[in-house]
């Protein structure tokens, strides 16, 4: 997912950022980088009385524990390892002494510096924290050094710090961080201008090694997810949702539900009817025993087929213009050859491994939430508004998320508010809302369905001279608080990104958009607009190369002369994949390159096709340019995971509607990738000293077109629909 609540530039931290030191009673040192808007005249933050506020990134205990406070959600993308690497690097802590802890909701202190809000997404965790975390680590180290210098009566410049140990060679003194934690808390803040960050050649963690984590609890079952939260007197709620979007409860007979032994209560909430019990299974039995008469008179009753027909009809008319270079209409008339393609994309569910859930505890004067929290500022505001509270009365605990893929960052805070409505009805009792997989799959928020139409003209030498692309689908931003800055001149940037930013040198290029209003709830899905634009543009480029009788890699490289980073990853991947090398009979290769979230990814997929039309993706070679590689192993893991994640909708995942009902319900009919379908993956990271950018999403977009292009090379068939279907296969 990707969004901006404000222009990012002004919020970049600088060395002059105000630093804050808080003495934590008896426990040592807590440090945080103050953000620019907490300006110098805001002297209040130096006061003793806010010393217990968890407003910082580093906490060092006298027990020698280094606790790093993570402002970003860990949902599998490696943000905690990444941020801890940055902090531990400048702090010179031993990796083994470091533990991570989720930050509370506190926009001022923990905002995403690329947004004007606290939240995680858009592959921005490393990019926005790079300087901030290193500065926080360096500041802590400087104060530990100052404390040691004072105690040992030696110049600070002679003190060495390594692996969590301070030492002074001449006097043979040494001590752990823990021993100096409390003394460090009484040191003056280092002068920001004098705080020197490491020269990259001195990095011990950044870019260096695989940092294994033993503290996550993810191999012994001790990691805490929202699903695992237990509070005294807590009730579990299971909700019956309307089967169609827009449906409402006409009447409910809850007598059978209340008769289920152990059911505590049944409450009606805006999104349906909730059954509460002490445990999940009882609540679910109660929910299943509800007899609800739904009012579907105003509900959504369309089918996927009609939706796509409607999109196609709309595509006959011009849309809102997202990009317009030159004059495509006249250029098209001069073309020697015109090629056309139409593409259809279904709705997709996020199907996060942990179905949505949320714990809410409403009290008369506040509310506490436990959640795999991805968008604190928005959720806090929405919860507060729902309860008539101030945002600061809403405390949010950010737990590990059992993946998200964008689902947990919802401007509507849907499942949080559902939990809050139930908890409000049970004020003073903590309530855990648990969705079943079926609830998760049918209660909405999908990657929207889209239709794309592309026409391109080639000159007599096979050079593309004109490209017209029309996109039809629902806007992610429309109707949300983000509309005002995400939609410009009728164009939702997230509907066209990747197409409107086509890097190929084509003099006449036009992209336009129809944003269709439908009551199907939609949301960003790992890599957002690029999920569909990379497929249409990168398979269509292959068609053009084929028409021009040119090699797909050479054809692209020729058009990317002005885009060195695209050019770089494409060249790298072709070389590493052995693009020109022969393959076994029945195998073929396909390539794609795509920029998203300021990272550049290229992939070569190798497929094998059997005579009966069945095929397998055998191997995927990835090249990624994400600037300076902070954690090479996390980058590799994200590329591997992206390949597997992106392959599912190529092969089989789709959400379809029949008269408004979602046809799929669980993993048997919304199929996702399993281990036997997983190709071998090889990852190559482009060496770079550019500013680091994200890797959670950029590995996703090129996969589908690379696979489709490989299949086209193998079969001679062009693919214009996902999931893709080979002729002759069942």
């Amino acid at each position, binding site marked *: 997912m990707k969004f901006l609540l404000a222009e990012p530039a002004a919020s970049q931290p600088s060395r002059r950022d105000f630093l804050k030191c808080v003495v934590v009673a008896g426990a040592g040192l807590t440090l945080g980088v103050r953000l620019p808007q907490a300006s110098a005249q805001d002297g209040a933050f130096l006061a003793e009385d806010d010393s217990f506020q968890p407003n910082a990134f580093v906490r060092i205990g006298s027990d020698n524990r280094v606790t790093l406070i993570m402002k970003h959600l860990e949902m599998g993308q490696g943000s905690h390892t990444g941020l801890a690497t940055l902090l531990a690097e400048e702090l010179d802590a031993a990796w083994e002494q470091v533990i991570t802890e989720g930050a509370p909701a506190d926009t001022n202190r923990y905002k995403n510096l690329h947004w004007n809000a606290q939240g995680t997404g858009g592959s921005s965790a490393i990019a926005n924290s790079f300087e901030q975390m290193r500065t926080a680590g360096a500041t802590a180290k400087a104060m530990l050094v100052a404390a040691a210098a004072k105690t040992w009566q030696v110049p600070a410049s002679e003190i060495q710090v390594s692996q969590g140990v301070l030492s002074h060679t001449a006097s043979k003194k040494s001590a752990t961080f823990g021993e100096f934690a409390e003394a460090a808390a009484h040191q003056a803040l280092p002068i920001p201008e004098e705080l020197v960050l490491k020269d990259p050649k001195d990095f011990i963690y950044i870019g260096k090694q695989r940092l294994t984590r033993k503290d996550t609890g993810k191999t012994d079952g001790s990691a805490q997810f929202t*699903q695992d939260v237990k509070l005294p007197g807590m009730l579990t709620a299971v909700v019956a949702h309307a089967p169609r979007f827009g449906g409402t409860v006409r009447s409910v007979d809850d007598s059978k539900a209340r008769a289920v032994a152990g059911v505590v209560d049944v409450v009606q909430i805006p999104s349906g009817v909730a059954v509460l019990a002490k445990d*999940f299974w009882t609540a679910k039995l109660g929910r299943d025993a509800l007899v609800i008469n739904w009012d579907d008179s105003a509900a959504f009753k369309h089918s996927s087929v009609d939706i796509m027909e409607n999109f196609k009809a709309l595509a006959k008319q011009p849309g809102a213009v997202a990009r317009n270079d030159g004059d495509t209409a006249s250029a098209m008339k001069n073309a020697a050859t015109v090629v056309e393609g139409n593409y259809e994309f279904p709705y997709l569910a996020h199907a996060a491994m942990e179905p949505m859930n949320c714990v809410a505890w409403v009290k008369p004067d506040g509310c506490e939430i436990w959640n795999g929290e991805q968008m604190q500022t928005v959720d806090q505001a929405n919860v507060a508004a729902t309860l008539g509270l101030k945002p600061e009365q809403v405390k949010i605990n950010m737990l590990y998320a059992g993946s998200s893929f964008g689902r947990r960052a919802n401007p509507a805070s849907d499942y949080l508010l559902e939990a809050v409505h139930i908890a409000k009805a049970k004020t003073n009792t903590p309530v855990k809302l648990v969705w079943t997989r079926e609830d998760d799959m049918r209660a909405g928020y999908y990657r929207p369905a889209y239709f794309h139409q592309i026409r391109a003209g080639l000159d007599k030498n096979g050079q593309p001279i004109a490209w017209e692309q029309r996109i039809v689908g629902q806007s992610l931003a429309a109707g949300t608080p983000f509309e005002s800055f995400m939609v410009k001149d009728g164009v939702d940037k997230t509907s066209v990104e990747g197409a409107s930013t086509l890097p190929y040198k084509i003099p006449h290029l036009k992209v336009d958009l129809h944003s269709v209003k439908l009551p199907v709830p939609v949301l960003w899905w790992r890599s957002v607009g690029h999920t569909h634009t990379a497929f249409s543009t990168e398979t269509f480029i292959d068609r053009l190369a084929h028409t021009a009788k040119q090699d797909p890699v050479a054809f692209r490289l020729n058009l990317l002369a002005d885009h060195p980073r695209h050019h770089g990853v494409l060249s790298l991947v072709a070389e590493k994949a052995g693009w020109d090398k022969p393959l076994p009979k029945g195998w073929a290769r396909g390539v794609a390159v795509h920029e998203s979230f300021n990272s550049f990814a290229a992939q070569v997929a190798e497929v094998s096709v059997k005579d009966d039309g069945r095929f397998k993706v055998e191997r995927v070679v990835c090249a990624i340019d994400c600037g300076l590689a902070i954690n090479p192993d996390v980058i590799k893991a994200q590329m591997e*995971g992206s390949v597997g994640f992106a392959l599912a909708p190529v092969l089989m995942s789709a959400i379809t509607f029949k008269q408004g009902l979602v046809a799929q319900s669980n993993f048997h009919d919304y199929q996702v990738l399993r*281990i036997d379908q*997983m190709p071998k993956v090889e990852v190559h990271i482009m060496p770079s000293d550019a500013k680091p950018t994200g890797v959670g999403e950029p590995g996703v977009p090129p996969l589908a077109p690379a696979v489709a292009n490989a299949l086209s090379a193998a079969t001679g068939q062009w693919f214009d629909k996902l999931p893709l279907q080979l002729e002759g296969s069942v």
Partner: protein
Amino acid sequence: MSITLNVNGLDHTVDADPDTPLLWVLRDHIALTGTKFGCGIAQCGACTVHLDGQATRACVTPVHLAVGKQVTTIEGVQSSVAKAIQQAWEELSVPQCGYCQSGQIMSATALLDSNKNPSDADIDAAMSGNICRCATYVRIRAAIKHAAQQLS
């Protein structure tokens, strides 16, 4: 109804309907939350436990079927095979979000218990009931082989 279960070597007496899935007895009655809920219909493997050493989907196993058997969950796996699997998982940084990994580790342990040197095809066959939405499959394969090697 009162039911006595042996979980991780300890007897637990719970008050639950005998048809309640074992998963929810473990999670909600015995507070062993390492075993996860992912689908409820034996499609994802997140709830995998061992029943007398056999990998079993706890979400579709009525608790009464576990009575008289040894139930082992992620919190209680102690064998050298399980330890080798957990260590390989850490060394190769397998987990991403981690939510599926209790189930993956329980399935992988059961695999190595019965097959000391599994091929890719054996791994695919034994592990294809365990979904990982983060698609950590490349590393799951590598870690199973790594653990097998460590044990040999």
